């Protein structure tokens, strides 16, 4: 609502109304008849731009401008002086107090409108650049420095956060030798706010894990605790997040996960791709939500693909979102490629309406190697095992 609110300060009734009418077509306009009233309006809500007369009763434009310069939260509001005093002295005085523009009456209303547009555009641009910079910083901190690794496995990771994307999170920890915990999630919302929440939320998850992993190694139990944190802690009251917690034990080739409303992972192998179906409710919504652990064994040559909803929601040339069906299809054609993650993403983009992803894209591909496994077990007893899963080549 306050996105483009403009305050007009003008003592002359007719002109005030005219400006209100013309600017009101594009912006949310409020008015004041003098500096004092203007300060009250500003107290109610800080406008995005002020257009003010100079000569006014009670408190004139100069005094208003000076008062605004005194306060941190009003200092930077773009300010346009609008006055009949065309003389050079007041113009200079106007410049001195840090006024952004100075328009003399009689003025061309279209010219005023274009200056307002330009000024607002410039401040918005500045804000965007700042947001992008902070957002990038958060995004970097939210991503892992090191990938988990184990003999006979390869872990591929891709993350491309958008400047104004959402709050994707990824984390991998090794609480004890031979066991990894992988966290993939998405904090709901957009932009800097979501990134900030994602950042603090990841902190919560890590400390919860750290505290709990001494007593449990169940992703579902961790999930239950994280959900309670979101339900009980006031700072996180309005935060909702989908989360996929994966425990990976490479020596047993075992994956145990709990899924709280997150995009369902894909299991892919020589026989094709399938969705790993079980999941529970998203976090932060229901204090009584329960979570369940599900286990699966990674067979030689198969991979678990986890991702975030930016991929799922990519709009394809068909006009539809990629969806789970689309991911399965593209995963199948990427399987077996040297870099399956890049192949998958490239082929999705080839079929997309836009040539870029519309949102953050994050993917984690955990693959048990087919060849390494055979080597470690020695030659496969091909001659008496017609049911052996290895390929014959």
């Amino acid at each position, binding site marked *: *609502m306050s996105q483009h609110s403009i305050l007009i300060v003008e003592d002359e009734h007719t002109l005030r109304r005219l400006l209100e009418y013309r600017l009101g077509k594009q912006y949310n306009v409020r008015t004041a008849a003098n500096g004092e009233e203007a300060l009250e309006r500003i107290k109610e809500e800080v406008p995005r731009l002020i257009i003010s007369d100079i000569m006014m009763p009670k408190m004139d434009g100069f005094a208003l401008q000076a008062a605004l310069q005194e306060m941190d939260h009003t200092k930077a509001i773009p300010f346009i002086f609008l006055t009949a005093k065309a003389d050079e002295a007041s113009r200079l005085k106007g410049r001195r107090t840090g006024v952004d523009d100075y328009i003399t009456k009689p003025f061309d209303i279209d010219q005023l409108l274009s200056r307002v547009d330009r000024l607002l555009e410039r401040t918005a641009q500045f804000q965007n650049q700042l947001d992008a910079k902070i957002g990038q910083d958060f995004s970097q901190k939210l991503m892992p420095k090191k990938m988990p690794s184990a003999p006979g496995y390869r872990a591929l990771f891709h993350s491309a956060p958008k400047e104004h994307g*959402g709050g994707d999170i990824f984390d991998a920890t090794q609480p004890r030798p031979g066991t990894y915990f992988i966290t993939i999630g*998405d904090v*709901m*919302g*957009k*932009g800097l706010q*979501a990134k900030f929440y994602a950042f603090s939320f990841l902190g919560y998850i890590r400390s919860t894990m750290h505290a709990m992993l001494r007593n449990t190694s169940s992703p579902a139990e961790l999930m239950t605790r994280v959900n309670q944190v979101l339900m009980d802690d006031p700072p996180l*009251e*309005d935060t*909702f997040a*989908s989360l996929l917690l994966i425990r990976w034990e490479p020596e047993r080739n075992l994956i145990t996960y709990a899924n709280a*409303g997150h*995009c*369902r992972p894909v299991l892919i192998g020589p026989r094709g791709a399938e969705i790993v179906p079980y*999941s*529970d*409710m*998203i976090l*932060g*919504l*229901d204090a009584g939500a329960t979570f369940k652990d599900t286990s699966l064994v990674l067979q030689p040559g198969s991979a678990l693909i986890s991702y975030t*909803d930016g991929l*799922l*929601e990519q709009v394809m040339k068909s006009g539809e*979102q990629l*969806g789970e069906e689309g991911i399965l299809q593209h995963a199948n054609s990427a399987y077996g490629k040297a870099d399956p993650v890049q192949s998958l993403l490239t082929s999705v983009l080839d079929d997309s309406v836009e040539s870029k992803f519309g949102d953050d894209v994050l993917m984690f591909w955990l693959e048990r190697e087919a060849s390494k496994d055979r080597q470690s077990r020695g030659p496969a007893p091909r001659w008496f095992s017609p049911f052996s899963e290895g390929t014959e080549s």
Partner: protein
Amino acid sequence: MQATTMNFTIEPITHDSVVIRIGKALDFRNAADFKAGAQEQVRSGVRNFILDFTETGILDSTGLGSIFSLYRQVSPMSGQVVFASVSRPVQVVVQLTRTYKVFRQFPTVEAARDAIR
């Protein structure tokens, strides 16, 4: 008596129930408006919300978040948020997040009205 804000039509049905007709999209562009509109209803005593998704083609995570906020606000006051005439794109998001356990669904607004009465 109808109030329209952005893409939403809010229609009171009883002293504490309203139908909010969600337009073509509820996403990061208008989620704040939805939140503000719903907030105003809660302040004026409304506890039960029927969300009509007949026309809705887009529901993104920010939009869904604004519905979640509403749910968290009214559920401690024995309020309800129910979904009516859920379109396919909305159904996909609801399935993915497993929130059908929380938001009851009805085929039509009328069915929802009868159920929450």
